[in-house]
C-alpha cells in the first residue's frame, strides 16, 4: 500500500472527527483552547500509534474470541502510561484535560483502528495508519480549539488578540456544540467542492 496515502487519509478523507464522527466526547470536552486541543490530540495520537504497533505485533498470537478484551487491555495500558507521564511532566495540561485522558480508552478511533486496521496489517503500515489517524484527529481538535478560543476569548494559542471580552459562549458547553456543528458544515462544503 502507498504509505503516503495511508498516512494522509486520516486528515481529510477519513478524518475521525469531521468524516467518521468518532471520538466526539474529547473533541467537544477539551477544546476550550487550541493548546488543549493539541495536547489532547497528541496524547491520543501516542496511544493510537502505540496500540496499533502492539496490536499488529501480536495479532497472530491472539485467539479471535478474546481479541477485543486483549486489545482493550493493551489500549488501557498505554492510556495509563500517558496519564502518568503527563501528570509527572506536564501537570498543567493534565489538569486542563482532566477526565478526558482516561477516557481515551473508550475513544472509538483507537479501538476502531486497532480492530479494523492494525489487526490485519503489517507493523509498518499500522504505525503509519495510527500516526495519520492520530494527527488527523489532532488537527481537528486543534482547529476546533483555535476557533473556540478565537471566538470565545479573542486569543490564538494563548495570545490575546483583542482586549476585553469576546463571545464567552464559545468556551462554554453550548459553544462547543455550535462550533463543531458549523465546522462540520464547512467540512461538508469543502468535501463537496473537492469532489
Amino acid at each position: 500500500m502507498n504509505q503516503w496515502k495511508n498516512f494522509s487519509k486520516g486528515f481529510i478523507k477519513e478524518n475521525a472527527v469531521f468524516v467518521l464522527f468518532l471520538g466526539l466526547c474529547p473533541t467537544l470536552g477539551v477544546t476550550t483552547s487550541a493548546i488543549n486541543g493539541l495536547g489532547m490530540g497528541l496524547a491520543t495520537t501516542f496511544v493510537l500509534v502505540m496500540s496499533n504497533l502492539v496490536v499488529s505485533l501480536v495479532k497472530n498470537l491472539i485467539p479471535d474470541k478474546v481479541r477485543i478484551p486483549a486489545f482493550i487491555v493493551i489500549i488501557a495500558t498505554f492510556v495509563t502510561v500517558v496519564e502518568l507521564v503527563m501528570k509527572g511532566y506536564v501537570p498543567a495540561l493534565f489538569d486542563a484535560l482532566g477526565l478526558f485522558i482516561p477516557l481515551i480508552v473508550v475513544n472509538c478511533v483507537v479501538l476502531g483502528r486497532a480492530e479494523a486496521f492494525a489487526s490485519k496489517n503489517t507493523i509498518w503500515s499500522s504505525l503509519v495508519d495510527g500516526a495519520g489517524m492520530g494527527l488527523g484527529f489532532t488537527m481537528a481538535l486543534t482547529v476546533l480549539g483555535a476557533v473556540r478560543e478565537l471566538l470565545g476569548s479573542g486569543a490564538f494559542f494563548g495570545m490575546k488578540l483583542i482586549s476585553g471580552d469576546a463571545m464567552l459562549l464559545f468556551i462554554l458547553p453550548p459553544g462547543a456544540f455550535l462550533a463543531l456543528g458549523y465546522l462540520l458544515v464547512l467540512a461538508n462544503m469543502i468535501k463537496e467542492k473537492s469532489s
Partner: protein
Amino acid sequence: MNKFIVSPSPHAYTDESVPKLMYGVIISLLPALAVSVYFFGIGMIIVSSVSVASCILFEYLIQRYMMKVKPTHLDGSALLTGLLLAFCLPANIPFWIVMIGALAAVGIGKMTFGGLGNNIFNPALVGRVFLFISFPVAMTAWPEPGQWMHYTDAVTGATPLGLMKEGLANRTVGEIMPEVPSFLNLLLGKTMGSAGEVSALALLLGMLYMMYRKIISWHIPITILATVAIFTGILWLANPDRFADPLFHLLTGGLMLGAIYMATDYVTSPMTPKGMIIYGVGIGVVTVLIRVFGAYPEGVQFAILIFNGFTPLINKYVKPKRFGKEVKHG
C-alpha cells in the same frame, strides 16, 4: 374555449395569511413599543431599529447567498423576530452586540433549520440567550427609565428581580421590597429591565388584542402566568421572608413578554390545547425554579427554550381528541 383551472377540493379559502398574522402580532406589540420608547427614548429607537434591520438583512443575505433560495425577508417574520429580540435587550446595549444577536437569532435559530416554520427553538430567544451568555456584562446593565437622550452612556441599575436575587443572600423580602419600584410602576413600566418587557400593562393589552384577533389562544400565556402565580404563591405562603409574593413575580422580569410573545410562537409551541397546557405549566415551573433557586435572577427565557426542546415530544405523545374513539349512549 376556456382553459379551465383544475385542482383538488376545496375550492374556497380564508382571507387569513401568514403576513397578516405576523403583522397582527406586530400591531399588538405597539403599546409595549410606545411605552419603551417613552421610558428609554433614543436608546430603544436605536436598538429596535438596528435589531429589525439586521434581522431582515441577515435573513435576506443568508437566503440569497448561502441557501440560494428566493428570499422571504419581507414576510413579517424577520421583522417580528427583530422586534422581539430588541424587546428583550437592555436599551443601552451597543449596536454591534445587537447585530451579533440578530445574526444568532436569524442565522443559528432560524436559517440553520431551513427558515420559517422549520426551527425548533424560538429565534428571538436564541438570540437573546446567546447574547446573555456571551456578553453577560453588557446584557445585565439596565438603564434607568427616563433618560431620553442617553444611549450607551445611560445610568444603569439593577432589575427588580436582580435586586431580589442579590438581596436575598443576606436580607429578607420585607427589607428588599422598599428598593423595588411600586407595583403601579411595574405595571406601567417605570422600572429597569429589558426594553420591551418593563410594562406588564402594555403587554397584557397586546395579549388581549391577539386573543381578540384569534392569533393566539388563551392556553399558553394564561397557564404560564397561573403556574407562576400558584407556585410562587405556595412558596410565599410557606415563607414570606425568603420568597417574594406572586404579584411581584408576575409583574417583574420578562415573564409577561415571554408568556405572551415568546412561548406562544406558533412554530415552537405544541399543537394541541392539552399539549399547550403541559407546555405552559412546565415553563411556569422551570421559570420559578430558576428565579428562586438558580444563579440567574430571571429564568423565563431558559424555561421557554427548554420547553421548545420538549415540544416535539409533546406533539408526539399528546394528540388531539380523535372523533369516535369512545361511543356514548344516551
